[in-house]
């Protein structure tokens, strides 16, 4: 080719290579240099990096905590990098597996259900809170249990996963019911009333993702039962609470008072668009419910129905929730101090974040403040926050263990089969075998 074309093609190639090189050098910064003063006297300084998701709740809370901590320690800065949970879990696994723990941030948020798995498999990722001065008795025992391994605490509970039953008060009123009729009841009672509501208004009271075991897991935990025993062995077969939960679920689906959809967006859409008149999920679902501005004032919150005929059944449960973990990098002492003074020690922080983000945390002393007992117009003027904090103290503990996700997925598969007609005990036997195989 002639001279000009040669030069032009060389120039373009050079430009592209530079662009590719520039794009690939975007690795996250490692944590800042450790400048924590050993003694707790005197203001501290340093930079903390945080990985968390949800800019409207977790990240917002972390930035507010930074402001509060900076009152005493103006030289401490907190840098938050937004990382969705799926990505965060993949990053943790990759860093731990390739032993690059230096690239961990100082603080990161971990789903409660995944805590055991990560601590047991990758202890190098975590520093424990034994010298941090955090009073764990100020958090509900059921929640700290998620991040406690062999007696040591590895997480400060934050995002509250206490389960609630949220219903459209205007819809149930048409069938002659109020929220009190759905409080402290059993699931068989719920089924009867839900059928009546459906007959009168044509609307189901619940919806959920097909093949998702969330609701059944909540029912299971409400009876203090789990998929694993304290030693980590699967207890999927011969689990009366699980059998009963699946049976209740099947009855709800068959009576068409629970609609099954195929994705998370569809599920949110069912109650936001008014096709379904309620939902049972963690308290964090309130944020999604409140996006339906035209339904303001027509929602009520109460506790869950309990399982009939099962020992230890209660009206309280949990779904999800997350806790702050610290990595054993240079800044871990500063990070621990930061968390103990803010998320585990500052009523101001919780007062600030509650009205703006509308979601609850786990720290019990925060519940005593006046902000928590403010009525919420969307939910019929009730003081829902103090209600839910009260629920959270009554949630039974459950065992998650390192194989929790295997257990959940196996039970989800079993549920799909049972809804298509397979015998429940046989399906659960198969699920147990799948989990035992995965644990080998």
């Amino acid at each position, binding site marked *: 080719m002639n001279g000009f074309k040669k030069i032009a093609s060389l120039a373009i190639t050079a430009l592209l290579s530079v662009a590719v090189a520039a794009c690939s050098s975007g690795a996250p910064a490692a944590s800042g240099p450790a400048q924590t003063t050993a003694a707790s006297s005197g203001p501290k300084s340093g930079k903390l990096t945080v990985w968390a998701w949800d800019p409207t709740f977790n990240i917002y809370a972390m930035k507010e905590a930074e402001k509060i901590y900076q009152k005493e320690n103006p030289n401490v800065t907190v840098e938050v990098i937004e990382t969705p949970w799926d990505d965060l*879990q*993949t990053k943790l*696994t990759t860093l*731990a*597996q390739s*032993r690059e723990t230096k690239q961990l941030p100082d603080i990161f948020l971990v789903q409660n259900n995944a805590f055991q*798995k990560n601590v*047991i*498999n*990758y202890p*190098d990722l975590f520093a424990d809170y034994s010298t941090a001065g955090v009073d764990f008795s100020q958090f509900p025992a059921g929640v700290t249990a998620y991040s406690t391994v062999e007696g040591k605490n590895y997480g400060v509970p934050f995002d509250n996963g206490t389960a609630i039953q949220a219903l459209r008060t205007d819809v149930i009123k048409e069938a002659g019911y109020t929220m009190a009729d759905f409080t402290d009841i059993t699931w068989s009672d719920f089924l009867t009333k839900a059928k009546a509501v459906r007959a009168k208004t044509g609307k189901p009271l619940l919806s959920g993702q*097909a*093949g998702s075991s969330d609701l059944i897991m909540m029912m299971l935990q409400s009876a203090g039962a789990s998929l694993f025993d304290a030693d980590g062995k699967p207890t999927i077969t011969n689990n009366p609470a699980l059998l009963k939960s699946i049976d209740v679920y099947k009855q709800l689906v068959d009576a068409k008072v629970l609609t*099954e*959809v*195929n*994705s998370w967006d*569809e599920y949110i*859409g069912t109650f936001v668009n008014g096709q379904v008149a309620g939902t049972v999920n963690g308290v964090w679902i309130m944020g999604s419910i409140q996006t339906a501005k035209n339904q303001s004032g027509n929602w009520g919150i109460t506790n869950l129905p309990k399982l009939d005929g099962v020992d230890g059944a209660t009206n309280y449960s949990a779904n999800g929730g997350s806790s702050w973990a610290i990595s054993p990098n240079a800044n871990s002492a500063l990070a621990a101090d930061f968390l103990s003074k803010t998320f585990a020690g500052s009523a101001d922080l919780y007062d600030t974040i509650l009205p703006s983000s509308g979601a609850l945390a786990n720290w019990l002393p925060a519940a005593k403040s006046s902000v928590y007992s403010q009525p919420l117009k969307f939910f019929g003027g009730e003081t829902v926050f103090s209600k839910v904090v009260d629920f959270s103290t009554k949630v039974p503990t459950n065992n998650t263990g*390192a*194989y929790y*996700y*295997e257990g959940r*997925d196996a039970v*989800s*598969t079993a549920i*799909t*089969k049972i809804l298509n007609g397979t015998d429940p005990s046989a399906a659960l036997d198969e699920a147990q075998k*799948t989990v035992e*195989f*995965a*644990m*080998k």
Partner: protein
Amino acid sequence: MSLTLARPKGARPKPDRPARERRFGLEQGRSLTGWLFLLPAALLILWMNFWPMIQAFILSMQTGRGTRLNFADPLWYNYQRLFSDEIFKLTLQNTLIYLVIQVPIMLVMALILANLLNDRNLRFKGLWRTAIFLPCAVSLVSYSLVFRTMFATDGLINDMLLGLQLVDSPINWLGETDTARFVIILGLLWRWTGYNMVFFLAALQNIDYSTIEAAKIDGAGPLRSFWYVTVPQLKPMILLVAIMSTNGTIQLFDESWNLTGGGPAYTSMSMSHYLFELSFQKNPNFGYAAALSYAILIIVAVLAAIQMKVGDKRD
């Protein structure tokens, strides 16, 4: 290879050198230069491709969770475990179903489309070619998500079917095994037909028009000339496209992950998706996941070998 060098005029012919000294003569010098040019790229490939492959193989012989890996006893324990893993067998079945149904249909469609677009008298050729090739320019994740929305219970497809009164109630596309697999196959067909069509178009350009003319003169209709004249000359390209498609379909991941999420109870999950689950979502079992990746490699290699044997009949 020996090259006769053109000697500049007036130069004396070089005296015959003894054989020993011819080792670093000009030809060897040239091939040495060639090797030197290849060396950086070859080293890079060795370091970034082959060394990780070897490491993965070593990993596949280890058991244990997280970073607590030890060599398995016996060494092939993970591979043995694959045979008794019900979920793996299900994902293998799913992937093979996609392979057997989707690839032949796609190749036939691509072949027909390429033949149609190769017609000399077709107008707006550029437009048709672009339109059929355009799906390939779309990212796998984007189109999977769009398909998922389209085939939702209250999505576009159900709305259309209900509106045209072809069905009485919305079909639960992604919630039933057969329809979930159908949606994935449909997505794959939409995405990759254009890509393979371009390969066939290129091959068709190389076919001597005189052969087709000869067939016309002999009285062959379009179908017969297509089958007996065009296709045999396209055999090498069909083989290439078949091997590439097989390779791609067996390694399927994005559609399984984004479109159906593994479908109802693992019934539309592909092997690579299961591999990802084992590594990052469940309790990390990297040794077993590495063994699974080698299983995928073996399957692809075996199928490619079979296809080469059947299709590659070079004289």
